[in-house]
């Protein structure tokens, strides 16, 4: 049984008729048309979206509108995607980030300080 609110005393009935299949950490789940990754996972009773890069502690959604970045997951191989702002698509592969060995030790030590300095970088460096 999932966590859906099908009938509501004021709002219209929402029958959830168009299933979408996606995976989270290798397991298959069903979402419905209109779901974000965050809502689809919560409907499937999944609250732990990732483990903190440094402490390894479990984290889930917090603000659900894109401000807090607590719900960041890996989507089709791309890191740091906000689960609350991203609609589920058929066949989407969603994965949790996990604790890193040295999260606060980036290879790069100097960063552009102004927008002009950023623009002066090559495209490759800008994307780093």
């Amino acid at each position, binding site marked *: 049984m999932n*966590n859906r609110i099908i009938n509501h005393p004021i709002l219209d009935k929402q029958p959830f008729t168009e299933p979408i299949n996606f995976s989270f950490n290798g397991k298959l789940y069903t979402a419905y048309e209109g779901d974000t990754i965050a809502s689809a996972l*919560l*409907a499937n009773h999944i609250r*732990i979206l990732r483990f903190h890069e440094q402490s390894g502690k479990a984290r*889930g959604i917090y603000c659900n509108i894109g401000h807090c970045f607590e719900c960041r997951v890996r989507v089709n191989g791309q890191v740091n995607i906000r689960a609350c*702002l991203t609609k589920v698509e058929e066949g989407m592969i969603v994965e949790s980030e996990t604790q890193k060995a040295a999260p606060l030790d980036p290879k790069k030590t100097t960063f552009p300080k102004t*927008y002009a300095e950023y623009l002066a970088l090559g495209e490759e460096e800008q994307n780093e």
Partner: protein
Amino acid sequence: MNKYDVAIIGAGPAGLSAAITCRKQALKVVLIDEFPYAGGRLLGQLYEEGDGTWWNGIEEAENLKKEAEDLQVHIQLERSVHHIEQTKASSFIVHTNHGTVNASNVLIATGAAESPCPIPGWTLPGVMSIGAAQVMTNLHRVKVGDRGIIAGVNILSVAIARELQLAGIDIHSINLPNPQTTSKEDSHPKVVMEKLTHLAHLAPSSFIRMGSSLAKFQFIRDLAVQFYPRSGMPMWGMPIHLRKAIIQINGSDQVESVTLARIRPDGSLIAGSEEEVAVDFVCIAGGLYPLAELAATMGLPFQYVPELGGHIPLHNQAMETPIEGVYIAGNITGIENAKIAMKQGTVAGLSIAYRQHQDEAIEKARRTAIEDVEKTRAEASIQFDPQIEEGRKKVEAKFWALEG
């Protein structure tokens, strides 16, 4: 190069209304929002008006979106704006996660975000902002849990608690957040009581309603806090506590319980009064603040106005900022309800159209629209802060002082 007359950031009530207004004046409009649905904070709003009718924000959002689409506003969702730069007069480049957009005018209608209210344990999965629970429940139609508790007593938490209850979710109670880790504004019983009395006319409980007429006397408010019932004040069957705080959230890798403690009228904890309550989710309600980072990246001047919810970019009643071609509307100008945001959006739209067309008929319509904002404000059944008018005057005065 494809250049728009106006780029609007934020597809909430203000942005949508402005887009509609601009299209009616034949401007070329792009409306950008990072959320997958247009509507902003309208999405999820569901409350009963004074006359017994229901305000359904999702329906309002759909109607506005449909009107905007029919008028061929270019709506771009799931697109985040992180910077706006001005290259010359009437030339703005909007930087997004999917390339740039060029426009002659920019309207920043980014709305509001929820203030954090840290309580030990608040990073556990199952702890979320009250607005998160609202969107999950009413928009996505997903239950955030079976039995929850709320930290933060304010207009938003009381309204959304009711919405969760309507969706069949059990709410244990509404309490203050830990006074040792949050601001006095949020956790001091007397300060919170002060604010609540201004909402009391909305309450179904006759006791609280009675409170609103008595509340003009300070000593009554003090007495009410002093003798606040230990079982809380029930509203729709949910107890509201002004003398209890959630001091800790417990669980190994998700929420399992909270620790409540009684507090004195001055906000200090009563040692030995702790009790543990089993819940599977916790909502944190720290109130709203204007979301103004984009205005800051553009170099717009700000004024801190607590009555309006935080740092406000300077602007006038026509929604103009000190940078020509840059406008703001909606909750970025101060925390108020969605109806006011829509009216402000119309004003901003007319200001932009007037700048483009220099047409006296538009200027006349704008004057009427400004009056309409004030009328809507005066009629609002929900006021987020009793001193909104004073706050707005402060911003307006600063704006004109700057303009000389």
